[in-house]
């Protein structure tokens, strides 16, 4: 009896937490459909006019494109570096591997403002400020430790004897990786790429420092536009980003296998 009550209470807490997480998102999505110009909840009348406004705005479309380019670049770079690093730490003994894995997450503890200021100073030396390259490199500082952790965890569960078997049968190290290792750790690789992508997509502070008029990402564009007035297009963009991220998670989950996906996260 007591146990059942506790179970019910536990479920109630989880339900409340989920609501707290999901409701603000629902509010954002709802305000995107508000017919009036005000960002308000509940919406007064439904309309898709702000979606049309978004499509008509070259600034917003450019920002969406910028975000996609930077997030894709960050995802590719972080995953590649994460794979290389995870392969590298395999050669270390247990103690050193743990130390490196722990040290690797340190960049996550550096505040975005500091990364923003310092990378801006650095990249300006090479005339790279306001470029995609600068944004991708700076975002990768944050995304790579996350990608590395996920990949390292999935490598730790992989049976490396399969890798040896591939080498033994004449596969070069690269073909052994692409032909045998990658298909077996694809869930981990997909999750790492996804995490890096989302980290870049939502990152604001670093992008604020490093982006220029032509490379402004969505969060920076939203901030710019909100500084002047409450622009309903921001709600629309937020809703679209939300749908995009959820869609990506679903697609990656389906491709990589839902069970493995959850275990690698």
């Amino acid at each position: 009896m007591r146990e059942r009550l506790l179970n019910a209470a536990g479920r109630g807490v989880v339900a409340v937490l989920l609501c707290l997480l999901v409701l603000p998102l629902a509010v954002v999505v709802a305000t995107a459909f508000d017919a009036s110009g005000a960002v308000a909840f509940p919406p007064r009348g439904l309309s898709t006019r702000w979606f049309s406004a978004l499509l008509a705005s070259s600034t917003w479309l450019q920002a969406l494109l910028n975000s996609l380019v930077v997030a894709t670049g960050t995802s590719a770079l972080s995953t590649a570096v994460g794979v290389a690093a995870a392969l590298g730490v395999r050669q270390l003994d247990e103690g050193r591997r743990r130390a490196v894995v722990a040290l690797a997450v340190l960049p996550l503890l550096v505040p975005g403002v500091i990364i923003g200021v310092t990378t801006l100073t650095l990249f300006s030396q090479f005339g790279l400020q306001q470029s995609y390259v600068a944004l991708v490199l700076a975002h990768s500082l944050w995304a790579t430790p996350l990608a590395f952790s996920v990949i390292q965890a999935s490598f730790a569960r992989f049976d490396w004897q399969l890798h040896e078997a591939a080498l033994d049968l004449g596969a070069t190290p690269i073909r052994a990786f692409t032909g045998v290792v990658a298909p077996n750790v694809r869930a981990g690789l997909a999750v790492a790429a996804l995490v890096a992508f989302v980290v870049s997509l939502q990152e604001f502070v670093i992008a604020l420092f490093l982006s220029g008029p032509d490379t402004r990402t969505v969060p920076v564009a939203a901030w710019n536009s909100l500084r002047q007035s409450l622009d309903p297009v921001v709600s629309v963009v937020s809703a679209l980003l939300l749908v995009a991220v959820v869609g990506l998670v679903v697609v990656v989950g389906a491709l990589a296998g839902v069970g493995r996906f959850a275990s690698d996260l």
Partner: protein
Amino acid sequence: MLELDDLTVTYGDLTAVDGVSLNVRDGELCCLLGPSGSGKSTLLRAVAGFEPPDRGRVRIDGQDVTDMPPHRRPTSMVFQDWALFPTKSVAENVAFGPKMRGVGRADRRAAAQEALKLVEMTDYAEADPTDLSGGQQQRVALARSLIVEPDLLLLDEPLSSLDRGLRETMQVELKRIHDRVETTMLYVTHDQNEAFTLGDRLGVMEAGRLVQVGTPEAVYTDPVDRFVESFLGSPNLITCRVVDVDEGPTVETPFGVRVPAPVDPDRLTLGDDLVVSLRPERLSVTAVPAAATDGGTGASVLATVVERVYRGSDVRLRLSVDETELFVKRPIGADGGLAAGDEVTVRWAPDEATYFDTSGARCR
């Protein structure tokens, strides 16, 4: 064919393989036999290129491959739990080697079919390897290694995770395949029966060292030291005291009987310990009255039967002589229907026993 010269592999402070030199002849099936931790698997992995040696050379067909990466070596390995690729079908697993060598799709499919035929697995070409039984996976792993026509096939306890009946079937099968393909094989096992069934020659390993190499018969009948004797023969080891050296070497057993020990007298010192090893199958047992007539050349002692175990092919007796236990293995019918509690005479021929000093070295 395969030449190992002073091969040494260390992990930190641990010397896993310690100065091993070995020649494996062309077409030979050579077994490396030893208890777990004796370094036999590490030795095999060093030959495959997975463990860089600290010292020594590995040569295959006269070519020094010591510094060659695994994928360029003319070897192929069958792993202990087979290491089949779980994301590929059986046929894709077998065709992997040819694919890596740039063989075209149609040709490698045909080659895979041929290899699967050799191991009688053609019906499972499209199966998922994880759905196969242990014995079937073992066959696929063998086909996957043989298809690349290695100069040297390495097998790392490939049958150890199979149950006993299947293991014996697969031993016969492996022997058949070896006769047919005539590939040189280096086979690691901790199972003496397996090494004896399969090996043209065998090498016994202890603590990283290769202590003896020879045909199964030579190694079994003429062990170089006490370790090989114990590992292969499960003998009765009796620590005796040397009581006479010059007038025909004689030792006294812990149960008081003095017996001749035909050993080079130069190896013996009066009062030292000498370990006498008696193989269970070389002890004969007779009911007490017969003991009255001792031929004088043999050694005999009175004992009591503690336990008699009927094993179908033989009978095993556990005897006690004072504090000492003796194990005896006799053919069916040769023990005269003894039962627990019977008094018996145990007899052995001193020149059929083997003798070791306290360090374990053989005394001849």
